[in-house]
């Protein structure tokens, strides 16, 4: 039972950065923009949050610093993709490389000492319930915040006018422009939001999940988040489920390594990447489902006619 609880809570925690990053990217893609630079924004978030802690700033400020760093990084992409109408693939890649460089540069003096991680909260009374208490009510606040963000984003996208406008822009920016919506401005906001969320994801990695600084510590989690959005066929609930699936995969292979299964640890570590490929292949078979929720203008530059 203890092992089960450990795997369950580990899964939820490992999924948290993926939930942040993938939900953020979902909003960006729903507006018709493809930002491949999540990995770079996450690394920026991780580095700035860690930097704030090293500088002696309190935890909430550090997390905010991470989020803002991600947003600032996303602005670079936004200017290129939205104002300068560049190829979004190339702009996103540039951001991924740039972010990894900036974070490594910042992190050169961080040392390898761990910091005091974000504290877990034991929710009064609820956390004392046998089994369910330790499973659901003993996480750090960011875990709950990620779940809250899931509800907020689902509600925004499908239950508000703002969400409808955002999705319209993703489907047909020409139409939205003709009706009078500021397509470029709204896309900027979406990109900034995606950056904020990727920054949060990175901050979570460096101040709560690991909590120490390792160069390129995201280890592909930004790219996996991108895959999650495709896997989820652009629907929030599936992003959540997908993130838990991958979180579970990460924890299971870690448990496998800890139990000393007679498979080399490197090969176990490769499992999440392999699973990403397998899942992508399976989901790609269902073209109809992909087409149904795919933002039709994704990655196509839009220039309002004057």
């Amino acid at each position, binding site marked *: 039972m203890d092992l089960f609880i450990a795997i369950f809570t580990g899964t939820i925690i490992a999924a948290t950065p993926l939930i942040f990053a993938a939900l953020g990217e979902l909003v960006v893609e729903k507006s018709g923009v493809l930002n*491949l630079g999540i990995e*770079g924004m996450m690394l920026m978030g991780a580095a700035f949050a860690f930097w704030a802690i090293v500088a002696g700033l309190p935890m909430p400020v550090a997390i905010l610093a991470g989020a803002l760093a991600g947003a600032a990084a996303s602005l*670079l992409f936004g*200017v*290129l993709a939205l*104002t*300068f*109408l*560049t*190829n979004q*693939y*190339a*702009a996103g*890649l*540039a*951001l991924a*490389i*740039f*972010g*990894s*460089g*900036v974070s*490594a*540069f910042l992190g*050169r003096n961080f040392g390898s000492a761990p910091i005091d991680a974000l504290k877990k909260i034991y929710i009064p009374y609820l956390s004392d319930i046998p089994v369910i208490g330790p499973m659901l009510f003993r996480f750090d606040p960011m875990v709950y915040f990620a779940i809250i963000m899931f509800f907020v984003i689902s509600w925004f996208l499908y239950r508000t006018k703002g969400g409808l406008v955002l999705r319209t822009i993703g489907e047909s920016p020409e139409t939205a422009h003709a009706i009078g919506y500021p397509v470029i401005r709204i896309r900027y906001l979406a990109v900034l939001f995606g950056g904020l969320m990727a920054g949060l994801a990175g901050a979570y990695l460096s101040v709560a999940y690991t909590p120490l600084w390792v*160069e390129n510590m995201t*280890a*592909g989690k930004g*790219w996996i988040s*991108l*895959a999650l959005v*495709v896997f989820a066929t652009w629907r929030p609930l599936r992003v959540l489920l997908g993130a838990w699936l991958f979180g579970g995969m990460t924890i299971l292979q870690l448990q496998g390594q800890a139990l000393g299964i007679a498979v*080399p640890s*490197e*090969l176990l*570590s*490769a499992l999440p*990447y*392999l699973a*990403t*490929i397998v899942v*992508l*292949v399976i989901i*790609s*078979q269902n*073209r109809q489902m992909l087409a149904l929720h795919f933002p039709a203008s994704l990655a196509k530059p839009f220039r309002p006619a*004057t």
Partner: protein
Amino acid sequence: MAAPVIATVLTLLVGSLLFAVLGYDPLATLQAFFITPLNSLNGLSEWLLKASPLILIACGLAVGFRANVWNIGAEGQLIIGALAACGVGLFYPNPDSWLLLPLMFFAGAIAGMAWAAIPAFLRARMNTNEILVTLMLTYIATLLLSWLVHGPWRDPAGFNYPQTALLSAAAMFEPFDYAYRLNASVFITVVAVFLMWLFTDRSFLGYKMSVSGAAPLAARYAGFRESAAVWTGLLAGGAAAGIAGMAEVSGPLGQLSPQISPGYGFAAIIVAFIGRLNAFGIVLGGLLMSLLFLGGEAVQMNLGLSAALTRIFQGILLFFLLAADFFIFYRLRRIPEHA
């Protein structure tokens, strides 16, 4: 051709600003970054040595990029090429055979192509996005390399270091001069550049690839198969990256260790873009990118600055290049208030 030059100049400007902010004399640092490394014969040898894999890989990748086939995993294909080549070099029964080097060459090329064939098959037959698959395969390749050098392929006489035994002399490219590391593998890159030029400027297949990239609907109407473009693009990139990996093992490295490339596979993507996806431009782009790597190492050794600066410069260069394109393709015009 103006955009790459403008982007380079702007990158240098931002670079000097960055140095100034960090408290270093901008001019002296720029000189240490971009000029001093080339001041000696050894520097020039290192310059070409690093430019060679970048240009080679960028040529292969550009074939795919022309057709909008996004192979982002050249780093992984390089690693697998190096693995296969080194495997042949280590386990071929006669370590002094003249056959060894050609065998390693083909092993590297075929292994790189095989690794790239996975995303090609998945995209062409299974409709799966090649960007994500090539990237995931890069992580897997890195882990595979790490496992081999920590485990089965570790040199028993290597004091427990995670590395393979050194390759025999017959498995290595001859350096032009034993004082420097530059070796005969640069001729492979020269041939690749020529092939790239033939392909893009003189072949029907190259033309079809360009049409597929520029106007997919026209390409389909003309009967050019998309899957052919996908296979050609990915296999060209995989072969080039695999050969580059082989040339690293048989050149400057001489053995495998957990980290065999400073990110050539990723940097080559930028090289292909700076080079405007054509052979001549890629040569210039590769020389520039190689200088960024050299400069990063130089300021790390001489000024104690981090080599991560190289990646920052790479990112900035690509940012400016993309932005400069905008001003070339569009003209800004003031619109009267009440138009």
